[in-house]
């Protein structure tokens, strides 16, 4: 990255930046492959704080592992059980952490734009690990990495993103990043689960999953985010599953080389059938593994150089 200080959104990355992250991740993965000591001394003496205001399993653990494999010190902070429950603001929490010497803050927050605000307040680097319904850039990077690893390219790859686009920061980040990297993105969702303004995104929009599957190289299933569903967006789970779920029959209509992705956590039987999730086409486990390499690359590129340099 002609090095930026923060990673706030995938839309900020140009093609060279994004490619550098993916190439760096690939080199890190091959450098660590088959080693007994899966640790590099690169960020020795640096401190990374995982500041999580929302629940997370894989993202937090993935960032923690990435930072530890680069020898950084890691502090995990979850809003539950902290002074946040006493009413401390995001700003005060961040300044407190920084006063204790953190070099980077990896933040997940329920409010879209929280990482951007944070970046204005602190001296160190800020990495967005998911903000509201806005962006989740490292997920998009690991998805792009996984596609490139499986299919050998990103340019011209036809990616279909299916489901709850409205609430999905994963979808947003992927749309921007994949378009930057030359993929052709199609969104398929019930009209109620598409955001206003989707017409200005670099995508094609469709409502019929069966029509697009035979021409897809990648199908990315989104989780139905029940916790963000405060209105009736579709008639019933069964109805949703029948029209927008990926089952074995639908998977059978994909081209031979096509892959199936899911950012996790999955609702098996809802947006994705168990037999699809466990099939050879599924990259779901690869995505988790690749997440660590990609996050190592991001932390290295943001923190490896001179402190405060841009």
């Amino acid at each position, binding site marked *: 990255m002609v*090095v930026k200080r923060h990673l706030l959104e995938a839309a900020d990355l140009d093609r060279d930046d994004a490619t*550098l992250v993916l*190439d*760096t991740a690939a*080199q*890190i993965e*091959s*450098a660590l492959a088959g*080693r*007994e*000591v899966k*640790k*590099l*001394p*690169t960020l020795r003496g640096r401190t990374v704080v995982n500041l999580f205001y929302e629940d997370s399993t894989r993202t937090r653990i993935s960032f923690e592992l990435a930072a530890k494999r*680069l020898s950084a010190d890691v502090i995990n902070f979850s809003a539950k059980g902290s002074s946040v429950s006493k009413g401390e603001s995001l700003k005060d929490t961040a300044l407190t952490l920084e006063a204790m010497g953190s070099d980077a803050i990896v933040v997940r927050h329920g409010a879209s734009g929280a990482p951007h605000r944070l970046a204005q307040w602190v001296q160190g680097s800020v990495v967005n690990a998911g903000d509201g319904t806005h962006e989740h850039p490292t997920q998009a990077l690991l998805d792009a990495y996984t596609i490139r690893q499986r299919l050998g390219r990103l340019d011209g790859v036809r990616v279909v993103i299916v489901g709850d686009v409205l609430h999905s920061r994963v979808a947003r980040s992927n749309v921007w990043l994949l378009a930057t990297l030359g993929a052709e993105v199609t969104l398929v969702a019930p009209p109620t689960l598409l955001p206003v303004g989707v017409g200005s995104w670099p995508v094609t929009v469709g409502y019929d999953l069966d029509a697009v599957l035979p021409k897809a190289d990648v199908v990315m299933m989104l989780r139905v985010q029940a916790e963000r569903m405060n209105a009736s967006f579709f008639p019933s789970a069964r109805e949703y599953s029948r029209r927008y779920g990926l089952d074995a029959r639908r998977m059978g209509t994909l081209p031979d080389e096509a892959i199936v992705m899911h950012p996790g956590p999955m609702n098996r039987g809802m947006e994705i059938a168990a037999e699809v999730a466990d099939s050879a086409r599924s990259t779901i486990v690869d995505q988790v593994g690749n997440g660590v390499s990609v996050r190592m690359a991001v932390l*290295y*590129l943001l923190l*490896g*150089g*001179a*402190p405060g*340099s841009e």
Partner: protein
Amino acid sequence: MTESSALPAEPTTAPLLSADDVGRVVDRIAHQLIEKAGPDLGSLVLVGIPTRGAPLARRLAGRIETFSGVRVDVGTVDITLYRDDLRLRGVRALEDTRLPEAGIDGRLVVLVDDVLFSGRSVRAALDALRDLGRPRAVQLAVLVDRGHRELPIRADYVGKNVPTSRSQSVKVRLAEVDGADSVTVTS
């Protein structure tokens, strides 16, 4: 004409080794490796330090095979993530790390680099090797040793010793990376 005296002196570049010289030097190091390794030649692993140590290691392996008929393993170790000057110079893109299938445990590893200067690259490579396995012994082969060591490190095989001043720069070009072989010194 008076203005030109205010300008810094034009840098001058002098040739140190021609393409033929580079070939001869590589041949000589290959012979030395064969002689010194003796019956251990089969357990030898040549590990190049990118960028130019990597093709150099492959060339040495090629010459060793030509001269002795023994095929030696070749690998590369990228040292970027082990450097002690990342904070000074900033991050850079990584290069390949590839080790032979059989690994380096219990084997004779010869690190290969183009120029030996401060010794910091070699230190980083030694740190990297420690994470990759436990060689029986580690040696160092370089095309050019230009002096000015900052660490207690020396090379076992040296193509050419070149006394330089710290401000000079030694540039190695290799066909695989730069299109042609040459070594020059710019002051």
